[in-house]
């Protein structure tokens, strides 16, 4: 594990000690990582494009994503419809573009929810130990006792078929990762000098946790967020694919693939291919972004 191909050590050490390192060194390191690894640079660009599509999607889309035109149903890709049309004659390109916002919103909301709940629980468990730690650990173990996608299915099936519940289910199955990470990172800093100093200057527990411990565990948590985004999108799309969550006329990548599934065996490939490819690219982009962030924040963890 020691002799992996790691970047040059000099900028590395500068980036590991964030409180003292001058912004210039960090910037230099980021530039170094981006130029060294063009894939990471591409993932940053892809992320930017996704955000733009999410914000301006409805303005860019050439057609109304919900307008059906049975005369133009099941047309293969052409100049008028770049991605073809589906069984109701809706323009697939427009639907794929407009769906970006919904898919990103669902996964972002789920990841933020998981991040907030997970870090609070993890920091408390790691800092206090004892009973708090045991109760939180037990709850996390309970979630992890299920195959995660199956648990998400169960939550959405039980609470009802709404977007809010997809967000909730996706958040619940991601919480354990944040709790474990926040707990371990906090535990390692519980006796650290700066925590002791903060306590001796009269800070209360919550102030120590919120203002001194949490900012220090933030970098590794952000890597987790990025890696989690891809998983959250996959999970939400998977739930929609089996008919849980987003309802049919709404454009959403998972449900569009499901709508195209029946046409694959008769050769109409474009209905499922385009939303599926975009979904895959989005997830791929987030995963590469996570890897890239990790190289920037903590090169030693690279595997």
């Amino acid at each position, binding site marked *: 594990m020691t002799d992996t*191909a790691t970047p040059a050590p000099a900028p590395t050490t500068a980036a590991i000690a964030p409180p003292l390192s001058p912004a210039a060194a960090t910037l230099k390191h980021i530039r170094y990582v981006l130029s060294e690894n063009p894939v990471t640079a591409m993932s940053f660009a892809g992320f930017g494009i996704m955000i733009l599509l999410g914000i301006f999607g409805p303005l860019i889309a050439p057609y109304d994503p919900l307008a059906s035109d049975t005369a133009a149903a099941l047309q293969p890709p052409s100049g008028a419809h770049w991605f073809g049309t589906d069984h109701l004659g809706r323009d697939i390109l427009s639907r794929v573009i407009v769906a970006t916002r919904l898919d990103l919103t669902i996964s972002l909301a789920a990841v933020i929810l998981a991040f907030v709940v997970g870090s609070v629980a993890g920091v408390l468990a790691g800092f206090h130990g004892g009973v708090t730690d045991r109760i939180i650990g037990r709850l996390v173990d309970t979630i992890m006792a299920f195959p995660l*996608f199956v648990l998400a299915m169960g939550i959405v099936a039980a609470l009802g078929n709404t977007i809010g519940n997809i967000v909730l289910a996706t958040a619940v199955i991601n919480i354990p990762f944040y709790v474990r990470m926040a707990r371990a990172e906090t535990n390692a800093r519980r006796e650290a000098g700066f925590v002791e100093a903060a306590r001796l200057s009269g800070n209360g527990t919550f102030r120590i946790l919120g203002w001194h411990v949490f900012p220090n565990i933030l970098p590794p948590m952000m890597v987790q967020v990025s890696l989690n985004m891809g998983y959250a999108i996959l999970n939400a799309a998977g739930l929609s694919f089996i008919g849980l969550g987003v309802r049919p006329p709404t454009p959403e990548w998972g449900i569009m693939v499901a709508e195209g599934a029946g046409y694959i065996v008769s050769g109409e490939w474009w209905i499922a291919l385009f939303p599926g490819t975009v979904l895959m690219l989005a997830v791929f982009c987030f995963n590469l972004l996570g890897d890239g962030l990790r190289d920037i924040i903590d090169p030693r963890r690279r*595997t």
Partner: protein
Amino acid sequence: MASSVPRMVGRRLLAALPSIVAVVVVTFLLTRALPGDPAAFFAGPAATPEAVEAIRHSLGLDRPLPVQFASYVAGLARGDFGTSLTTGQPVGAEILQRLPASVELTLAGLVLALLIAVPLGVAAATRPGSWIDHGARVVSTAGVSLPVFFTGLLATYVFYYLLGWAPAPMGRLDLFATAPPTVTGFYLIDSLLARDLEAFRSAFAQLVLPALTLGLFAVAPIARMTRASMLGVLSSDFIRTARASGLSSGKVLFAYALRNALLPVVTTMGMVFSFLLGANVLVEKVFAWPGIGSYAIESLIASDYAPVQGFILTMAILYVLLNLLIDVLYGLIDPRVRIDA
């Protein structure tokens, strides 16, 4: 030493008990949170309030929650998972009948994933920084990014529609083959036991694409772990000693390094199974595979909740048992764990 193995298995079994209890409690709570009133659902739209009340009483839904939980657990202990509203059959029997299909698919996917991932990880670790290392990283990142339901559709389009190599994605056997007599429930094994090569060929042909789809998803975590742990082992002293003693590089790599490197890989199998069992549901839907995943999806669409609940419970218990198996396996491979226990 010999007696420590059963003792270790016993300890692990005890340690798995809280997980099973937690799973049962959560599944029970999820059912009680179901939308709508089950009693009104059973009674139908034309029922009078009195009839709904009577059904609620006969279902035991008017009793306090702990009492309901006790009778739920008592039912589970008798193997009573409730009755499916759509088919009228007991859920336990239907799940038991469909379980082998799911297990066969999952295991086939796992074996394929191991066959691809372990050599890939070893190759990447022996030449860090080379094109094969970078290639393995791209392949494994792409592998986790693939939505299984989409890969399955893509594979169907290419290998069934375009090339005609694979059979139609319609279940475990083609229309003309008959199912072999049930012994294990795994068609591949049963057909061989019955010496029915035609059924074996058909079952195998149907299994290839879904298993490959499922396996691709699991390649990434296994390959990454293999690479990381191989790198660690290859830089350790005993490998240097082995090399210095003049052992062939193949012997050093496979007899010494790989055996030690596989230990951490075995521990990550728990996470891999969590992925596989979840992805299994989606793959079953794409390939119309008659396992418990597609059973759950059909029931979900019909708002038939007893099978969904049975499915979640079965999956969770299966997962707990698989984790138990991994733990025991780990103890058998690594004697140090046994001594600690």
